[in-house]
């Protein structure tokens, strides 16, 4: 019998509960808290920092990773400067570290650079380390979470994310021309194109990301594809829209069997996590002699991608993505639709809650 998954009983809190947790738990006098967050243009950048500063006060230290992309528009840089100024007003002692996402020859190095930046911190002086993924790209936050889980001995590791699928949709990445593994997520059986086992690719479908997903498909060369669709979702018609938007790929390219669609609760990262593990368990039996390899590509909403992250961490699945060369953001539209901030979600991944 398979052992219970590591995060089967993962603590997940939302909004009011997160604030209460911050007030009642993180504010305890013996706690020293490190917040690692993005210092970029994303409107969600400042939210968790403000809540933590209110309750933790001077025991809060922060590391703001500022993702640098060579083609970033000046408007985005201006927004990032403003957000950063606001963050530093709240945590004046914070460190701001620029993280180059691309090397001068356009190799993707963001994940490696971010881990380097985090590894330079004296992590053992903190009781609680919080990574706020809201304004960090996956290429950065996935390796950082993995690194924190590896090095943390006594510390509590928390992940915060402001769940705003509509904001994720409004921030449109311009994909780089090559797909690659997220740093630290190469899997255990060699490079993706070399592996022998039956490869199943689980891409998270996102509107407007056809080019990126197709690049990933070509890199992964899977034997089978099970697209992940968000359902239930904030927009109930979203799965239909996505199927329509990816009709060409699903029919002509990826040759998806209509029965091979995975539905996952857009608001529940553990739902996707459990679904992926169930699929893996089932395939292990079927491909016992040949071997099975699941490859993940979580490029959709932040919350849903955390579910894929947990599965990748637990089973060492490769995660393949396409880094964004730059982002296109219509700030006017963003301001219009973003009248109220989205739900703040907390996942407690490691530490005293688990004994």
């Amino acid at each position, binding site marked *: 019998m398979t052992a219970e998954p590591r995060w089967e009983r993962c603590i997940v809190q939302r909004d009011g509960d997160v604030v209460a947790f911050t007030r009642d738990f993180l504010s305890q006098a013996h706690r020293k808290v490190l917040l690692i967050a993005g210092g970029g243009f994303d409107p969600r950048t400042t939210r968790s920092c403000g809540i933590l500063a209110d309750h933790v006060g001077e025991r809060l230290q922060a590391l703001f990773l500022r993702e640098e992309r060579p083609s970033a528009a000046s408007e985005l840089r201006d927004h990032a400067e403003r957000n950063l100024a606001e963050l530093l007003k709240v945590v004046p002692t914070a460190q701001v570290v620029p993280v180059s996402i691309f*090397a001068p*020859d356009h190799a993707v190095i963001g994940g490696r650079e971010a881990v380097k930046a985090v590894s330079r911190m004296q992590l053992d002086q903190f009781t609680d380390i919080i990574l706020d993924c809201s304004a960090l790209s996956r290429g950065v936050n996935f390796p950082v979470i993995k690194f924190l889980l590896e090095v943390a001995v006594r510390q509590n590791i928390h992940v915060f994310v402001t769940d705003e699928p509509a904001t994720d949709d409004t921030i449109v990445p311009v994909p780089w021309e090559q797909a690659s593994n997220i740093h630290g997520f190469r899997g255990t059986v060699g490079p993706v194109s070399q592996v022998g086992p039956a490869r199943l690719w689980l891409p998270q479908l996102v509107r407007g990301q056809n080019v990126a997903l197709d690049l990933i498909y070509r890199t992964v060369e899977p034997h089978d594809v099970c697209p992940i669709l968000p359902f239930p979702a904030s927009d109930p018609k979203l799965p239909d829209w996505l199927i329509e938007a990816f009709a060409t790929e699903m029919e002509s390219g990826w040759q998806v069997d209509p029965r091979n669609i995975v539905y996952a609760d857009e608001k529940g990262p553990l739902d996707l996590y459990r679904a992926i593990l169930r699929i893996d368990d089932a395939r292990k039996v079927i491909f016992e002699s040949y071997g099975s390899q699941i490859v993940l590509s979580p490029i959709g909403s932040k919350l849903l991608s955390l579910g894929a992250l947990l599965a990748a961490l637990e089973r060492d699945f490769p995660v393949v993505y396409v880094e964004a060369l730059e982002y296109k953001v219509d700030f006017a539209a963003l301001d219009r639709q973003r009248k109220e901030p989205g739900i703040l979600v907390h996942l407690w991944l490691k530490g005293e809650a688990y004994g």
Partner: protein
Amino acid sequence: MDNPFERRATEQVRNEEAFLALISPDPITAYLSRYGSNRQLYDRLVVILGTPGSGKTTMAKLFEFPMVTALLRNSSVPSYRPLLTALADCGCIADGVPTLLAHRLSLESDYREIWEFPYPEESRDGLLKSLLQARTILGWFRHLTRTGIAPRQVRVISTGASAAAVEAMGGLSGEGILARAQQVENEIYGIVGALLPPSLDKLTKGATDAYRPFDVIDRFVVPAGEKSIEVRPLIILDDAHILHPVQFANTSRWLLRRELLVARWVLTRFDILPPDEALSVLLTAPGNAELPGITTAREITQITMQSRGDRREQRTQFRRMAKDMANRYLSQMPEFASRKLVSLESLLIDESEHLTDAKTADLADRVDANQRRLKITEERKQRLRAEVDSYRPAAGDLGEDERLAMLNILLHRYAKRTPQTGLFPESADPEPSRPLSVDISVFDAACLHLLHAFDRPYYFGIDDLCDASSENAEQFLRLAAILVDAIATRLIRGRTASLKAREQQQLLRDRAAAFIKDWNFPQVDFVRTMVDLLAQRCRAVSLEPNAWIGAGANAYGILQEEFERLSTVSPELGRTLKYAIAYNAITLVPQYECKNKVWCLLELGGIPKLHYGLTLKRGGFIEGTLDELRTYNRSTP
């Protein structure tokens, strides 16, 4: 509906026979045969440069051992014979058995990651070479296993290397070599996959020990039926542009050594080279170019799958290959194959669609108005009309709309070649300074004018589809995909299969616009702006009423001598041009002789030509300067 044109089907098929059914032998014959016949493909480093989608990988896959054995297994199938001949011409097959054990190693990000390690360059270089060699060995053995040859049946003939080198490789038995390669690969993969690499002094012995199988291996001895054969190992490093430029240079230098008996090919995109070197590859004659840090170009067989040299021949050759490829793809689609519709050429109607009577009348009114404005006599107009009427295009007869558009051009040319009419009475009908002739260029210009004035179909037929593809297989397939889709829809609806010229044009131009919108590569904003500015200028010149440039302009010409100063005058412009050329937005045509001068042309790619409504014919260019071009190098129009 499954449309294999939407992506290159060769990237999807796993079965050798299915792959072979899709492959055209033409690129092998065109690019490799002449080197294969004198062994230049195997006794030195071969560098194959090309744009994304130019067919480098497909060509390489064909040489892989399982593919060659599958081809030999099916040698009695008539459709495979051209491929067999092409591979035999390249020296890949002799006497009905393979002579090569080729493995294509796709250089993924793992290899580039090594450059990021905090070690001295020498150590990083050592790790890279060890990983490349270990994975190559694994690849060779995987191929042998796939064709039914177990590692224990394999023996290696050594180059005569030292006993220590042989031992470090795992001995000369197949099993020993394979085990050692697995060990080295595991050790280095562990370092590459680590979130933080270990410090140099903590690297394991397995990863840092001397491991140089390429220096040891001469031939593999493998069973073939009742007997044994010797095969030469070939490593094909695909997508080498992923390496850091210094890694690329070091790796090239390493593979350059003549004492290596392993055959080695490096497949790369042209943008791995620094801008000045990338452009000089295209500016210089084949065989004379140099790679970064390598001055012994004679030691390299360099094959450029990018437009240069005899362009007419290349166009003809590409058309042949593209048609062959399209037909092979069509035959994979049940909707077409079941109806015996396996020739794309026959499904794309290659006949002009003339204007409606109302539009023709409108055009006639415009011609009359121009005649009056230019103060040209009715008699002169009739004489010019008679010239037009006597012209016979290569295919078919002239329509009335074409005659009128040609007449309009002649009226304007006549007006340009006669003195100012204000000095003469209204009835004066002076002879032009140079006689007016009606030829193919007037006809082509008239057709282009009709496209822009009346949206009359201009891009149609298989040859236009091929020419719009910038001699790039992937671009051809992606353009063809939309046409094939439309034809399939017609079949499903029970309509005639063939696509009319207007439908073809609409689909192609829509797709071209979508391609340009979706461009994503370094310097894309600069490239997009430059293409836009150049295309608009070409269009304006092409639509001059007297069509002085003939069929139309689609290129920007700078004197060759001036262009060669590009890297010193404007490195930023060189960088933009490098990516524009590497991604088919622009084609460089050096040494173009015109008006007793030597030019370097920046010809717009097929996709911009379609999008901006420019001629697909070559040769028409607007004269410019490097200084002017520098002003176009900006990120917004």
